[in-house]
């Protein structure tokens, strides 16, 4: 863009007036030139897309080839439950149509294909990559691909199960500015990859680590062993999950009581989503992505957890002690 493109247009200033008052013109300008990729369009990511488009991102690319099924729409407000509209179209295509309508100044498009098959170059054009509803292997590999590129790409993984949610953030080596006592100070942080983070021995983690972290890892592992997709588990899987918990806890030398049965049971029965939790976790995720793109404000490092049962939204730092 030339010099002229640096200025926000009159229309942009009018529509984004209230948020410019929060994060400033510079951040808005940077934001309006950024490109975001999302994969796995269930409730939380749909919430994310809505807010990212409303706030005036440069472009948003959607990936989800699944066809519409009832449970996929339980927390989706972008797609009308009308077979005449949904027939023959993928979830990404349907969401794309709605999102375009949200903000004509944003370019929204669909990228078909299996997330696991996108190569390193594919991710090059994005500033932030947000994935959900994918296997442990895909999570690791997409994160690794983002890290191979010379340009820093912010990587996020988000998953909501029942009334719980988790956001993983990898900003690699990241510098940003924040205001402290009226002064702007420069800060640095180093994030581990997803693979590095989950490899941190459980015993070396702080004592008061949220139980949700361990429970999510057990379910994640279970899905790998059963070769099923996230969320395709059910209450009947509990005995096998409890067996797996025992194995993992023994291997990691932690007490099984760190991962209560009741919590695992809740996470397993997650076929339908819980819309308030999608809104909350999706909202936190947008805030983080906006921070990362604008380079303003403390980003969360590096995993966020929310559980509606106790109402806490917690940030845990799970990094390799050596890094």
């Amino acid at each position, binding site marked *: 863009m030339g010099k002229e493109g640096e200025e926000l247009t009159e229309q942009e200033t009018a529509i984004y007036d209230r948020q410019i008052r929060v994060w400033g013109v510079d951040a808005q300008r940077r934001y309006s030139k950024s490109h975001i990729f999302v994969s796995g369009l269930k409730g939380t990511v749909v919430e994310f897309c809505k807010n990212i488009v409303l*706030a005036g991102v440069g472009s948003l690319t959607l990936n989800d080839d699944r066809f519409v099924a009832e449970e996929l729409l339980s927390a989706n407000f972008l*797609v009308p439950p009308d077979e005449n509209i949904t027939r023959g179209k993928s979830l990404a295509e349907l969401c794309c149509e709605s999102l375009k309508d949200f903000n004509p100044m944003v370019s929204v498009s669909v990228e078909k294909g299996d997330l696991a098959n996108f190569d390193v170059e594919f991710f090059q054009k994005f500033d932030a990559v947000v994935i959900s509803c994918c296997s442990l292997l895909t999570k690791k590999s997409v994160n690794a691909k983002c890290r191979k590129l010379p340009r820093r790409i912010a990587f996020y993984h988000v998953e909501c199960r029942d009334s719980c949610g988790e956001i993983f953030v990898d900003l690699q080596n990241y510098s940003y500015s924040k205001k402290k006592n009226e002064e702007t100070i420069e800060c640095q942080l180093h994030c581990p990859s997803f693979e590095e983070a989950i490899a941190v021995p459980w015993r070396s983690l702080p004592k008061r680590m949220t139980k949700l972290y361990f429970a999510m890892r057990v379910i994640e592992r279970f899905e790998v062993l059963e070769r099923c997709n996230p969320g395709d588990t059910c209450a009947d899987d509990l005995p096998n999950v409890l067996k797996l918990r025992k194995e993992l806890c023994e291997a990691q030398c932690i007490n099984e009581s760190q991962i209560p049965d009741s919590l695992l049971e809740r996470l397993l029965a997650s076929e339908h989503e819980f819309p308030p939790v*999608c809104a*909350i976790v999706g909202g*936190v995720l*947008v805030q983080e992505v906006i921070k990362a793109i604008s380079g303003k404000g403390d980003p*969360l490092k590096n995993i966020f957890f929310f559980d509606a049962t106790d109402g*806490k939204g917690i940030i845990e730092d799970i990094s390799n002690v050596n890094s």
Partner: protein
Amino acid sequence: MASEEQLSAIKGAKVLMVGAGGIGCELLKTLALSGFEDIHIIDMDTIEVSNLNRQFLFRQKHVGQSKAKVAREAVLKFRPHIRITPYHANVKDPDFNVDFFKQFNVVLNGLDNLDARRHVNRLCLASGVPLVESGTTGFLGQVTVHVKGKTECYECQPKPAPKTYPVCTITSTPSKFVHCIVWAKDLLFTKLFGDKNQDNDLNVRSTDASSSSEHAEDVFERRADEDIEQYGRRIYDHVFGYNIEVALRNEETWKNRNRPRPLYTKDVLPPQPVEQNGNKDKASKTCDPTSVSAMAYLGLKNPQDLWSLKENSEVFLEALKLFFLKREKEIGQLGFDKDDQLAVEFVTSAANIRAASFGIPLHSLFEAKGIAGNIVHAVATTNAIIAGLIVLEAMKVLQNDVKSYRMTYCLEHSSRKMLLMPVEPFEPNKSCYVCSETPLTLEINTHRSKLRDFVEKVVKAKLGMSLPLIMHGVALLYEVGDDLEEDEVANYAANLDKVLSELPSPVTGGTILTVEDLQQELKCSINIKHREEFDEEKEPDEMVLSGWTPALAAEKKTKTSDNGPSSSNASQAVQPEPEDDDELEIILKDPEILSAGNKRKLSDISNTADSEVSRVTGEMQAKSHVEADDTHTDTAMLDGNSDISKKKRVQQ
């Protein structure tokens, strides 16, 4: 996924949402997705362009339409089989009375002003319907639950009153830019374009000090056949030049202050109207009065730019001219509106010229608009999070799961690892005049203050009543209503202009007045204490209302931090006046205080019964347990007062 019991409670529930703005849009969506099937929604507002970045149910084509109605249509598209009943109306309308409220299982607020919040709080108390209250500014937000007799009501903690400035600060000795804004907006703008009959302090000092008082009366009127350019320059010279010269004569005032510089058009601008290089056609061809712009005419494009004194002076004269040329019909009845471009331009330029005169830094139109319009910073994400939290609380309320009720704070930076911080709700404040019938005390000069002062400044402004009835024993002193007889109306009107001690039933020291609002079903008694003198600077109202003690913590252990509402730059523009953007938000309790309290160990943690709200005697009333952590329970003190005073506000 909600449990079976949850689902049936949700399905059978009838909920009332008040507000279809930033929080409201998100809330309606999340309620519909969560399975609520009978939702009523009240909002008096229509859709504006600046809503579109976050009120996602609205599109450009809906600008000008009812928020409640458009929101309903939008949600029915993805949940066609639920019932949504919209009301394009003010929640304070008499139709929404106690009986109306009684039909609901829970009321959910997504409001933008203190006045309406208090009104809904009272109706919820009177009808016994639980209330879930919310607010956001920037990245901060909070959700609270108010259930009569079980938790504190919305008014148990005193709310900050809108800051008022001593008249002389505004008229003679401004020291901050906001003073110049108030002067430009409330005095100059109103004088030139608003109701001519309104009291206006614009010329107070000059008429006091000069002999030209009769002249001052009509100086603002445009003389017959006076050229508009001429008129503008005359007004300019009068308010920025002559009035300053007059003020300068009062040496006493400037002993410890910087002397202002009188400004005249001849010194700032070339003698003849300048040829503009802006697009003249644009200004003259526009027919929509709200899009008339002096800036556009002058070729000033970026609202973020800082204009020079000369540019401000040009905008001032141009804006004044455009009001007379394009919007003459409205003159005499205009009120300042932050969405009125020309009004914002006029006020910005006038405030900046005054600021220049007093050596105060100038501001851009964007900044000035924020201050003048009390614009609340708002982002979509906080609203989405807060709406999700409201629905979680609503579900608990519907299942009567009292033990699980939480107030939740959404923070900008994590505090004790938490970004979303749940806290157990407080018990009702026993000295709350709204939910506990505690008498209030009013210090007032009964020989000088009129009943009108009492009604306006105490009953309406402080107690938030809209249809008050005032009694002294059995004698009715004042009443409002449609069903009054003519002689009653005349009687009450006459009473308004009487000083308290000369009312038919005289109000003096020791009198107990009963004030009642029949719509809100709120009644309270006020003990009158006569007091002769008041501090002009600190007590400009000449009355002091007390007795409504906040739930105070005797001990306060706070630490300064750049977290939370206290110092975040996102919370500057909060002001509890109805003239806000769509979600004014009040964040009263600084969560930092909650987290900084004492820590003590408890053997059992997950049992919430352990951490129920405990009461301490005396002043230490509000003591709360932060939700128990794995091995600790943190006890924190809340100091209602300090929270409020810590909060930065743009004040007028």
